[in-house]
């Protein structure tokens, strides 16, 4: 019976997975589903062309077949797909080659084209038709279906004809989709992706007519380089993946060749950290643990617990004791309490007994609340810095630790040698034999070591000049300013860069009932994000700017704000991948970069607007001045009984 269950489980897994989760993968709602289809096919075409060094010419055809029933075709002039790869490209889910690569890419979940095929199959039962040629004179016309049992694509028909053509055309029929040229559909998507891809030409034929989004740049941009991952933020899972794929013969050399900023010297340093962690592991749960902890930490937490026991809750004492037992994994947690205790120590030294008595209820607070209260009422910025420094150095260096352990006689020379050998074994073994525990230990130790920030040269922005060209072509604005910021890192080790632009006047902004309003165009790695705007950190960053300072009357202005975030890893808020996770408290580096860039553009806008306003005022003034001149001349002429025109002439001359 287990077998039958398992068989059923296998048979329905892929189709069921997709059916159940397609709304998370972009197929939620009729218009959004169609947009996702276009997105997958167009980004595939763009990627293929760029990879092959071809300036992309893409045709998108959307034909209405009935209510909620459309035929979609996307054709490119790319390198074509070799016959044997077609089933893999369109049939394999979760098989993307772009996963696990530290490279800036348009980003797939690995669903991509396979999702398009599945969606068509689920809603219409029909296959996708692929017409492709690699330029070898043979043009293949192929129909592909998804074999849900095998999780594979299957060619169900094949035709060949002779012809001189190179490229790929994907055709499919879809139900449960809808189309219009509105703000949240494929039209807007294509409009925006052409902005972000100035070297591509996209022609759209839809039920309403034909639109050409022409290229404004005739050169292909440089390809983004693959960058090595940085130790900060590396996960155990990622390290094991690297270990399985590496060509290095030893773990130590793998770390140097596969990770950024890791040198042989660093690996030597790593070995002392590993040694320390092995020793700690040994003494866990033993009677000597407290002694060992005293060799590990620079701060005597237990003595704080004793000294403050009248002021802190019993629960807290229990919690901290538990944390001590669970070192070194619990170090981050313990640091919070350590900070609280050194702060309490500072207060006890500074204040009188009476004052302490008055505030003693605050000592029962959890560390975050306590620190917030203390910083508000008692701590200057310098003191806060000093206390934080103390906590930064809460852990002794591995060398000091080992010296202390030896001193205290907790470990003999032979035992020490055994551990050192164990460490050597790990570092010298073949990476393919690295165990989970060993990988986890390495990753943990790497986090406590100091590494230089990673290089950021592999990122490839659109370029401020290109963005301005694109925006000018699309919006014909009166003013445009784009800026590409230098790359930085977030989460300690992930490179990113932001590009930002403001277009004002002309067709900028979104037309609404009350006139033109601010339009925000968000991009992640050059791909437009159309949905989940309110949840997106990019939107929040734009809205956090006080636009009134730059001469706007608020958001009722003909202004388009363009934000492009590029990175080897975009922090999305959810699997929908339409909103970026950043704010003042999360990935602040990204949030602040965007704000800075926007403010720079904003200042340029302000200069432009005040110049325009000044010029308008002067125009207005000039008009009035001539009128006043006439009136003045008339009055003077009447008083003196002299001819008006003579006087007016002289006045006008003076005022010119």
């Amino acid at each position, binding site marked *: 019976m287990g077998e039958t269950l398992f068989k059923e489980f296998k048979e329905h897994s892929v189709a069921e997975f997709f059916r159940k989760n397609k709304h998370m993968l972009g197929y939620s709602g009729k218009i959004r589903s169609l947009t996702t289809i276009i997105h997958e096919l167009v980004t595939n075409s763009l990627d293929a062309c760029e990879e092959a060094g071809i300036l992309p010419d893409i045709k998108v055809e959307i034909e209405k077949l009935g209510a909620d029933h459309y035929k979609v075709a996307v054709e490119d002039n790319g390198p074509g797909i070799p016959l044997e790869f077609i089933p893999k490209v369109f049939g394999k889910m979760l098989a993307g080659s772009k996963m696990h690569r530290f490279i800036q890419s348009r980003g797939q979940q690995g669903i991509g084209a396979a999702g398009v095929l599945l969606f068509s199959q689920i809603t219409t039962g029909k296959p996708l038709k692929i017409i492709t040629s690699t330029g070898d004179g043979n043009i293949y016309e192929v129909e592909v279906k998804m074999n849900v049992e095998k999780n594979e694509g299957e060619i169900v028909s094949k035709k060949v004809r002779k012809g001189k053509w190179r490229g790929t055309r994907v055709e499919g029929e879809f139900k449960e989709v809808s189309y219009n040229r509105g703000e949240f559909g494929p039209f807007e998507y294509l409009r925006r992706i052409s902005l972000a891809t100035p070297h591509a030409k996209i022609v759209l034929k839809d039920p309403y007519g034909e639109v050409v989004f022409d290229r404004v740049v005739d050169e292909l941009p440089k390809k983004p380089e693959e960058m090595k991952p940085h130790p900060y933020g590396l996960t155990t899972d990622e390290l094991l993946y690297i270990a399985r794929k590496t060509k290095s013969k030893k773990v130590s050399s793998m770390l140097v060749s596969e990770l950024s900023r890791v040198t042989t010297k660093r690996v030597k340093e790593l070995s002392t950290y590993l040694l320390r962690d092995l020793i700690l592991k040994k003494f866990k749960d033993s009677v000597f643990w407290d002694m060992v902890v005293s060799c590990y930490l620079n701060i005597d937490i237990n003595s704080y617990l004793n000294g403050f026991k009248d002021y802190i809750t019993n629960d807290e004492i229990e919690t901290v004791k538990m944390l001590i037992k669970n070192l070194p994994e619990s170090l981050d947690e313990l640091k919070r309490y350590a900070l609280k205790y050194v702060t309490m120590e500072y207060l006890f030294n500074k204040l009188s007994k009476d004052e302490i008595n008055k505030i003693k209820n605050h000592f029962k607070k959890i560390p975050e609340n306590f620190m917030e209260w203390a910083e508000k009422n008692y701590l200057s910025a310098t003191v806060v810095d000093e206390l934080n420094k103390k906590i930064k150095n809460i852990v002794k260096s591995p060398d000091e630790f080992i010296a202390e352990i030896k001193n205290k006689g907790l470990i003999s020379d032979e035992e020490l040698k055994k551990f050192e050998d164990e460490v050597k074994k790990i570092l010298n073994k073949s990476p393919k034999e690295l165990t989970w525990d060993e990988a986890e230990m390495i990753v943990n130790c790497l986090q406590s070591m100091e590494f230089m920030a990673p290089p950021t040269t592999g990122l490839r922005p659109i370029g401020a000049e290109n963005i301005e060209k694109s925006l000018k072509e699309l919006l014909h604005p009166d003013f445009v300013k784009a800026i590409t910021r230098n790359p930085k890192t977030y989460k300690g080790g992930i490179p990113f860069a932001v590009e930002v632009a403001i277009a004002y006047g002309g067709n900028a902004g979104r037309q609404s009932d009350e006139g033109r309003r601010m339009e925000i165009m968000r991009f992640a790695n050059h791909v437009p994000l159309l949905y989940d705007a309110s949840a997106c950190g990019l939107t929040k960053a734009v809205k956090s700017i006080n636009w009134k300072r730059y001469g706007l009357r608020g958001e009722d202005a003909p202004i388009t704000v363009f934000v492009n975030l590029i990175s080897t890893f975009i922090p999305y808020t959810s699997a929908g991948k339409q909103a970026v996770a950043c704010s003042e408290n999360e990935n602040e580096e990204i949030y602040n970069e965007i704000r800075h860039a926007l403010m720079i553009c904003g200042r340029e806008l302000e200069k432009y607007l005040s110049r325009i306003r000044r010029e308008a005022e002067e125009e207005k*003034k*000039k008009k*009035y*001045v001539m*009128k*006043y*001149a006439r*009136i*003045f001349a008339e*009055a*003077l002429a*009447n*008083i*003196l009984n*002299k001819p008006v025109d003579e*006087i007016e002439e*002289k*006045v006008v*001359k*003076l*005022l010119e």
Partner: protein
Amino acid sequence: MVKLPNIPKKPREIAKQKIIELAKKMYDDLMKGKRPKITMPIRSLSNAVFDKKKGSFTLVGKEKARTLTVNQAKIFAQTTKMMEFAKQLLESDDFSTLREAYYVSKNWGEARFDDQQASNNVIEDLEAALGVLREHLGFIPEEDGSSVVGPLKIIEETPEGELVVDCSKLGTGAYNIPNDVTKLNLETDADFILAIETSGMFARLNAERFWDKHNCILVSLKGVPARATRRFIKRLHEEHDLPVLVFTDGDPYGYLNIYRTLKVGSGKAIHLADKLSIPAARLIGVTPQDIVDYDLPTHPLKEQDIKRIKDGLKNDDFVRSFPEWQKALKQMLDMGVRAEQQSLAKYGLKYVVNTYLPEKIKDESTWLP
């Protein structure tokens, strides 16, 4: 003996001349290719000094010039239109209130005034630039003056002939000073003018025919005197050489707001100080010393009264030029009380007429300058 009154027409002739002169100067400048200018004295206390001999504030002579530039085009247009309008008023022997002038400007196209204040300012500018009272330009104030009774004949030329008002034959009523006193002819043989703060006291004195018993002209001030009232009293004083005696409540407001305005003028019209002030005026009561001498019923000084006295002692050039005033004000401050003019009723309703005023009028030494 009837003295020949001055012919009031002359000032209007002079004003019209000055308008034409200023216009001509602007025209000449224009023809030469130079920018026309309008110069006027700076109308603020910073440009004024209290001249003790003259008894009024005079301008020290700082001037500002308005030159025709792009920024000043509008105000130049407005000013010349106002000059044109004034000339028309003078030629047609007409007048315009300040409010009417503002509405007339609505015909001036882009040069029209958006609010009353702007219109008033241009008229004041012209006053200062030409050195001529606005009444002589044809612009009269919104307010009429107050009441007059006594041995005084007011004669006006009308199309129907001469109109005479005899202020001694008005019964319990009184003559109401009009907004524009420019065209009135004044005939009198009174001995002096008595200016009275409150209408209550005026009614009492009129009922008792005080003006008849003492051959004086009674003028009510009704608080701080209106421009028309001040001009009326000043004309009487100048044309018929009549002393001006002032009778107010015994409080800081009566001294420093009412009396002072009549005597010395206001800060706003500082450029016209000598045309509106009456340096010869004298305060006969109620003085602080009177409060003591006549043991009058009093009220304590209010916060603002004390402030007013202190301010006057410290900052007012007029007060600082007269030690008698300083002494009197300090005395009031020490006493801490004030008294109304009608408090004399303590001694009977006719006391003020029969005893207080005759005693005070006779004894100059009890007056304040």
